[in-house]
């Protein structure tokens, strides 16, 4: 008793083939979109690799590019199959390729599922890489004369301006590092000497932030120096007043951006795991079971599985068991020799 069988006359078969053909070409377009999304994501990761310590994993965009290309190829072939299926001569030529093609499609869907899982799980890796990378970026902000770190200041400034954030967790991260290079500090000045001597490592620490932390939307001209000193500015209380620098930390801001991209990619992938395989199975079985192959207008039956669902599962299990028992038969073959003697 076939599983989910449907009767098909000529009209219905033609409609099924046409509908499937359109669906396959739509899937080719989606494959192109996936390919370009993969390239976009790769470029976005490379743009900000400096604040991720050049350590970020490109697994998801690379897989996405591969999946996009595979999807284009597979679905174009599927479309060609549908197009040829209504012509009996072409169909008989295509018949041997059907089964491996459907297995390939199932494998491809499994790959898509894996990629969806990766999209959601790799976000943790991105978060950790960002945390580490931003910490180093803030530390190397002042090293504009060290080869390999010349552009760290510029990158971090542009990131803070673009993502409207300040520091790693929040703006207080800037209080803990020396972000002004010694080249611009007057070491003969008493104030400078006091500050440098006041901590163990001899760093010039201040309660100030760089200009890129400033919020243009604030009504007051930016207060970026002496943030915790209420008397340094007129009508200013740093505990009660809304500061005119960004409150958010850059790790949170950049992570929400990347997790947004990855979530949308995951959602699109779930959408593409459509049931093309089911439609193709119906069409192929409908064409195979035509009672009279010479008369194209006869009725036929199409199904998803040849036997019932439980029977097919039992069949598969028994196949797996016989595969396992093949080894056991060989062992059994050796023992009669032992008992005979």
């Amino acid at each position, binding site marked *: 008793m076939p599983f989910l069988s449907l009767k098909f006359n000529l009209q219905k078969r033609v409609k099924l083939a046409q509908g499937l053909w359109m669906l396959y070409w739509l899937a080719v377009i989606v494959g192109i979109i996936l390919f370009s999304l993969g390239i976009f994501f790769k470029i976005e990761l490379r743009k900000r690799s400096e604040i991720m310590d050049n350590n970020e994993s490109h697994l998801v965009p690379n897989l996405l590019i591969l999946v996009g290309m595979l999807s284009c190829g597979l679905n174009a072939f599927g479309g060609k199959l549908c197009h040829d299926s209504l012509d009996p001569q072409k169909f008989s030529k295509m018949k041997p390729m059907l089964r491996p093609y459907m297995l390939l499609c199932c494998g491809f869907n499994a790959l898509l599922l894996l990629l969806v899982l990766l999209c959601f799980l790799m976000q943790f890796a991105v978060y950790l890489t960002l945390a580490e990378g931003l910490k180093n970026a803030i530390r190397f902000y002042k090293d504009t004369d060290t080869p390999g770190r010349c552009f760290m*200041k510029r990158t971090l400034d542009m990131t803070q301006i673009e993502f409207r954030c300040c520091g790693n967790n929040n703006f207080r991260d800037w209080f803990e590092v020396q972000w002004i290079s010694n080249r611009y500090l007057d070491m003969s000045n008493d104030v400078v000497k006091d500050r440098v001597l006041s901590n163990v490592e001899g760093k010039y620490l201040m309660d100030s932030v760089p200009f890129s932390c*400033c919020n243009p939307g604030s009504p007051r001209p930016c207060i970026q120096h002496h943030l915790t000193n209420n008397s340094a500015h007129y009508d200013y209380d740093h505990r009660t007043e809304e500061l005119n620098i960004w409150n958010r930390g850059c790790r949170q801001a950049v992570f929400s951006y990347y997790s947004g991209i990855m979530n949308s990619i995951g959602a699109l992938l779930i959408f593409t795991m459509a049931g093309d395989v089911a439609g193709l199975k119906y069409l192929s079985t409908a064409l195979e079971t035509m009672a009279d192959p010479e008369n194209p207008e006869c009725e036929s039956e199409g199904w998803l599985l040849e036997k019932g669902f439980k029977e097919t599962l039992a069949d598969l299990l028994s196949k797996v068991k016989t595969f396992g028992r093949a080894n056991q038969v060989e062992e059994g073959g050796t023992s009669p020799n032992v008992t005979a003697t």
Partner: protein
Amino acid sequence: MVVMKMKFPFQKRVKLAQGLWLLSWCATVAGATTFTLGCLLKTELRRRAEVMANTDIHIVPNTLMIVGLASLGINYFASKICQDALDAGRFPRWKNFLKPYFAVSCFFTVLMLLAIIMSYAMKGSLESSLKAGLRNGIRFYKDTDTPGRCFQKQNIDRLQMEFQCCGNNDFRDWFEIQWISNRYLDFSSTEVKNRIKSNVDGRYLVDGVPFSCCNPSSPRPCIQYRLTNNSAHYNYDYQTEELNIYLRGCREALVNYYMGLMNTIGAGVLSIFLLQGSVLVSLRFLQTAMEAVAGKENTEIETEGYLLEKGVKETVMEYLDPVLTFLLLKNKVEEGTAGETTTAPA
């Protein structure tokens, strides 16, 4: 005296009609492109409307949008006409339509060319509009509590950061106005009182610029206050050192941006103008060639096509005459009646 006569055997007519049909559909797409380009330019101009004192420059995108829409209609009719052209029975019904159609099409095509010329000619107007708008923007920078000017500060800050510029002509414009609001000045401090008394208008002027003038590419943390005071910063010479604020003025930056945008759009629209012109010329040749076939038994004879029946001046006068007589008509009749009344009694 006919302008540009050409012979058209039957095959050539057929080829002309087919080629024209394809060309007119390309020109329809081009017309839609013109409309889109006009919308794009208008959107870009509106985004920075707060720093422009007047909207004179908007005539360029408005013209482009009108021309784009008109060319959609023109090319639609062109494709319909050339579809009917090869059928000698259907072509005559377009006869009365064609003369005003050509007049309107030529008008809109010339308007397209005018739009391109205007985009270059209005550079001066754009520059003076930006000059006045930026001057006001900088003057009202501190008025974040005045309704209507609350967002001036945010707009100017974002503009300076995005276009990498500072001030109107250059950063010294910030030295000439008070950009720190009185709400944030301690009037009991002697320094503040001195500064305010030191100029006629009683303004608090500083040799400093807002943070949005800072250049992130500079290796040194941003020096934005006491720019002219060498002793205020270590290892700093205002005259010789490369300042770590943007040196370019925002007016220059914006003018360059908009002129670049209009040059690119102008190049595209010029090619669309040539395409549209070729559609109209081909249609004219097809029309005149088919008109010679009308009424003949054998539709496959060779005919002559031309651009203008009379010379250029005479054709222009022919089209302008209806307009002129409409305006002058009243005068002519009045003169005639006055003449009659004077002659009748005599």
